[in-house]
Each structure stands twice: as structure tokens, then as C-alpha cells.
């Protein structure tokens, strides 16, 4: 603790340099976090995906799944599920968020926001059980509908399918959309609308030429967030279907903790496939974020 150089804050000539040094020091925890939880795991994934799990030899065999139609089924299921739940969650969530903003009632806003934060984080096995009890083959809602003459299961619906999972995923995708869309919707200034009206714009013209262009970027970036969120989800789907609907995260889990199908190298290769899709989503969102922040900064 007797290092005068570090504590010599008043040293005028080296002020600029030491400020840079302190900035670097302040950045250290974050850099350490990124290294430990992002860079190192990514590097190990990439390394593992090019090595044979048993012999350790360099190989491309782990990526053979890219050419096997059956092995791409998890990707197709995951893409379909994520896309469907994103569209459903996005549209419904956006409408609810706008309704909350338009209500101008602080109590409604408070309650809706709190509920959304809770619901957006209610996932995993508890959510799976809640849905089995509600929409399962013998669920409450299924039985009520059956009582009124509507048999959703004979109509082709199945909770344990991509369609069923879409409904379940929407349970947290909708509130997540509400949460991420509230700030940009609240930042829309009344004066923009007034200015447009004074210039003689109709409601539709205002939407088309002012509101939608400004909101387009936050909407698309929110949808990408929803998409990535659905793509990476695991516990809910597994709790509900015990692996019968094969999704990429479930397939990865089978490869790393199945007694029978143990092949960490192939799991790494699948994870890289997943990471590429996630990186594209998050990267696109970051780009769009930069464009829209210009308009919505308060």
C-alpha cells in the first residue's frame, strides 16, 4: 500500500496520462467480466468445435450436421418457433404498450409496467406446468372449450408442439415487448404531432411520415431482441416437451449431458451455429439502435 506513484493525483505534468490510466483501471472490472464470460467461452467453443471429442484431433466432422437434413430439423424448429413467437409477441406487445402510453393514467401505467416486468421473467418449469394445467390435453381451458363444443386438440392444436410452444413463449415475449417499447413510445413528443397537424397533415399522414419512420428502428430492434430471446430459451421448452420437440438448445444439452449421446465437440459446433444467429440479431439491433437514438434522445 506504499506506492506513491499511484496516489500522486496532484502531479500536474502527468495529469492527462494518469487520467487515461485511471480510465483504463476503471474499465478493468468490465474487461475482466467480458473476458471471463464472453471471450474465453467463445474461444473454447470455437476450439472445441474443430476438435474430435474423443481423440482431440483437428476435424471438421463436428460441422457435418450442416449437410444432414435430419440434423437441421432442430434449427428449422427453433427458427419457426422464434419467428412465430416474435411476430405474435411483437404485434400484441406493441398494441398494449401504445394503449398504456395513451391511457395517461399513472396507476394503469404503474401496474402494467410492474406486471410486465414480472411476466417477462416468468419462464422455465413453473411456466411449463402452468400451461399444462391450462392448455394441456386435460387442461382447464381445454376442458372448458370442450364443454362448449370446441375440441382444440382434434382441431390439430397440441401444447407439446411448435405451435403450442409459440403460445407459451408469447407469455413472456408480449410483456418483454411492452417493456422495451414503452420508453420510445413515451419519448414521442406531442409537439411533433401538433406541428404535423398545423401543417395540415391527416392522422394517417402523421403516422406514415413522422411516427412510423421514427419508431421503425426501435420496433425492429425490439423484435430482434425478442427473436434472440426465444431462440436461446431452453428450460420452458424442455420442461414442457422433455425433448420431443427438438430445438437447438435442447439438442446441445443432449450432447453435453446425455449419457448416450455424449459428444461435446458436436455440441460446440451446434452452439457456434446458435451463436452466429444470435450475433446477427444482436449486431443488427446495435446498428439500428444507433440510428434511432438520434431522434429519441430526451
Amino acid at each position, binding site marked *: 500500500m506504499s506506492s506513491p506513484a499511484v496516489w500522486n493525483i496532484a502531479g500536474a505534468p502527468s495529469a492527462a496520462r494518469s487520467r487515461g490510466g485511471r480510465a483504463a483501471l476503471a474499465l478493468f472490472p468490465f474487461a475482466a467480466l467480458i473476458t471471463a464470460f464472453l471471450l474465453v467461452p467463445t474461444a473454447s467453443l470455437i476450439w472445441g468445435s474443430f476438435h474430435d471429442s474423443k481423440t482431440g484431433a483437428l476435424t471438421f466432422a463436428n460441422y457435418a450436421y450442416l449437410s444432414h437434413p*435430419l*440434423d437441421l*430439423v*432442430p434449427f428449422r424448429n427453433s427458427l419457426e418457433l422464434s419467428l412465430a413467437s416474435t411476430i405474435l409477441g411483437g404485434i400484441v406487445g406493441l398494441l398494449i404498450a401504445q394503449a398504456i402510453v395513451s391511457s395517461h393514467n399513472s396507476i394503469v401505467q404503474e401496474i402494467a409496467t410492474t406486471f410486465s416486468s414480472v411476466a417477462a421473467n416468468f419462464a422455465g418449469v413453473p411456466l411449463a*406446468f402452468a400451461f*399444462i*394445467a391450462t392448455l*394441456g*390435453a*386435460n*387442461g382447464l381451458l381445454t376442458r372448458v372449450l370442450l364443454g362448449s363444443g370446441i375440441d382444440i*386438440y*382434434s382441431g390439430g392444436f*397440441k*401444447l*407439446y*408442439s411448435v405451435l403450442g410452444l409459440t403460445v407459451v413463449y408469447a407469455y413472456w415475449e408480449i410483456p418483454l415487448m411492452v417493456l422495451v417499447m414503452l420508453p420510445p413510445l413515451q419519448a414521442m413528443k406531442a409537439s411533433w404531432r401538433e406541428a404535423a397537424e398545423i401543417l395540415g397533415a391527416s392522422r394517417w399522414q402523421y403516422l406514415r411520415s413522422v411516427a412510423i419512420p421514427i419508431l421503425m428502428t426501435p420496433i425492429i430492434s425490439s423484435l430482434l431482441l425478442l427473436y434472440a430471446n426465444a431462440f436461446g430459451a431452453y428450460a420452458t421448452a424442455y420442461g*414442457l*416437451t*422433455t*425433448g*420431443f*420437440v*427438438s430445438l437447438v438448445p435442447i439438442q446441445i444439452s*443432449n450432447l453435453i*449431458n*446425455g*449419457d*448416450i*449421446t455424449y459428444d461435446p465437440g458436436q455440441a460446440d459446433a451446434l452452439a457456434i451455429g446458435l451463436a452466429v444467429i444470435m450475433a446477427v440479431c444482436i449486431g443488427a439491433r446495435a446498428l439500428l439502435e444507433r440510428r434511432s437514438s438520434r431522434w429519441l434522445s430526451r
Partner: protein
Amino acid sequence: MANDPMLARIDELSSAFTARQIDRRQFLKGLAVLGLSLPAINLIVAACSSAATASPSAAASMANLPGTAALIAAAKAEGSIYQTGIPPEWVNYQGIFDLWKQDYGIPINGTSTEGEYSSGQELDSIKNTGKPDVGDVGISFAVQAKQQGLSAPYKNSYWADIPGTAKDADGYWCCNYWGAQAFVINTDAVKITIKDWKDLLDPSLKNAVGIDGDPTKANDSFFAVWSAAVGNGGGIDNIQPGIDFMNQLQQSGNLTAARASSANVLSGEVKVAIKWDYLGLADRDTAAGAPNIAVTIPASGSLASPYADIIAAKAPHPNAAKLWQELIYSDAAQLLFLKGYAHPIRYDVLNTAGKIPADLAAKLPSADLYKNVTLVTDITKITAAQTTLGTGWTIVINS
């Protein structure tokens, strides 16, 4: 950790007292020196006194108990038994604990700390702590324990009754009970009679048939698929027909992805579950008529998986461990397993001798149905079936 020397000293004193090497006064003095509180001392003395009162000569007079007089005396002198992976609520072990305490009065340790251990954890504990005397493990772990030198050989007095495939030729492990794959049917929801595998393809069973988890991960559902092979032209050497049958069930829309857990069986989410008979029978009792559940063994056959008992190679109480073997294979304890719905390894012998009480038999699927059940103990066949399933199952869920 700081308590370890103290515990060791208490153990030492207790054994000396139980073996009558020191008297009560010396025992109390020894405990007091350790700075224990009075209630704690009383507890220890009470526990040891019951063991100390039965003298070797008294044990000899209990000739009708399992185990020779010499073995019982030696086990009592050791003062206690340490068990790993033997929980009271599993296959009615509580009943067997009670029997053990009533017959021999030897304290059982390890239940609260290691009772819930998985087979793998049990072997770790035997290898690393050196505490356990006996363990109850899945069959493949019993074989593994022998290979790693973790178990000691002992042939109990009922050795001749035990089928050749269910015991190690050198006595390093012996199966104690087994469960067989059964149909667990919600008879309130299912209107047809289900007796055999082909009945599961009935069009009235849409989204009704479930297995207990992902067969590539869970033993229960793995055996469900393998048992389906037995009824569909395959068998213990060929699991493929079982995979094909599951695929047929999936294509017909009868297989549901809902797991055949107790919750899903009781709620009616899974109307026909393929799972272990003992789990299904417990579900039936829990449901108590809401809904009505029937458990049956597929007529053309199914498979059974046994558990095995091992004695730790470095058991601190080797005689107590042997006495435990004598007890659990005895008629009384074997019937207690059956009361817990696990089929004891001497089931056929007891059944032929008419020793199974009628009220207990009435609660179980009939003994005739169990004639087509095959006990799976060959590890190489298990591994081969798992490998085939690993690739085959992907086709069932992805096609």
C-alpha cells in the same frame, strides 16, 4: 471440521462401551471430558445402552433371526452400520430399518447425509470418505464397483435362491429387488382394455400415451422403449423394434410429449403411462380413485431392471455390513420390499412357497404376468441398446 476428532472420540468410546470393554461410569466420564452438554451425553448413552444390553449370549438365543449368532455378536460389537444411498422412503426401506433395529438394535448412520445419494455419488463416497459399509446401487454401478475394487465379496445364506444373472459369481454384488416396465392406465379416461403393446395403437388413444422422460437421458423411459422391443419382435439383444414401435406411436398421434410423471398421470394429462410398476402402483395409491388407475404388465413381456447391494471393500463395520445382507435377503425383509411395490429378488421362491400374503398379492399385478418379464443385468447389452437408441431416437422426434 473442528468437530471431527471429537466425533471420532465419541465413536471410539461408544464402541468400547457397546462391546463392554468399558463400564457405564467410564463411558460417562469419557464423554464429559469432551465438554459435551448434558442432553447430548444422555442421547449418546441412551443410543448405546440399547445396543450394549443385548449380550452375545442373548443374541445366540435369538436363533430365528437372520444371521448366525457369531455374526450378530460381531456386528453388535462394531456398534453401528453406515449406509449410503439407502433412503427410508424408497422401496419401503423404512420398514426394513425398523426390522433391523427391532432384531439387532444396531444404530444406522448415514441415512440423513447420504440417503439420497445417486449410485455414482455412493461410489464416490466409498472411494473418498471410507465411511460407508453398504450401498444400494443401480446394476451397472455394482459392476463398476467390482471393477474398481470398491466392493467386498460376501455370499448371503439365500445365495442359491438368487437367479444366476442377478448375482456376481464371486459374490461382489447381489441384486436385491427389481422393477418392471408396466402400463399405468387411467381407467376413467381410457375406454378400451389395454393388455399388450399393440393395444396402444388404438385410434381412441390420441395424445394419451406417455413415457417418463427423454429416453436418451432417463433410465425409466429408456427401459420403456427397450421393453416395447420385447413385445414387437425384438428383445434384450435388439432394441430397434422398440424404437420403431415408438415411431409408429408418434406417427399415429398417440404418443404425447407430456412426461409420464406422477403429476401428469394424476391430472389425466397422460392417460396411459409406460413406466416402472412400483412408480405406477404408488401413483395409483396416491390418486386413491381420483382418477381410477390400473397397473398391468404387458402380456407379451417387458423388461425389469434390478438394484444391487454392495459391501464397501474398506467397510469400517464389515460384520454389520454382512448382517445387513442377511437381513435384506430374508423372507421378512423381501416381503417388505414387495410391500413397497419393488419386486424382491426372491419373488419367485416366495411366490412358489405361497409365502406372499393374499392381501399384498391383491394390490399387485398378477404373478403370471411377471413370468414374461426379463431381468436385465448384462452391462454390455445395456450399452449396446443405449448406443442404438442414441441414433434411432433422433429419427423418432425429428421425422
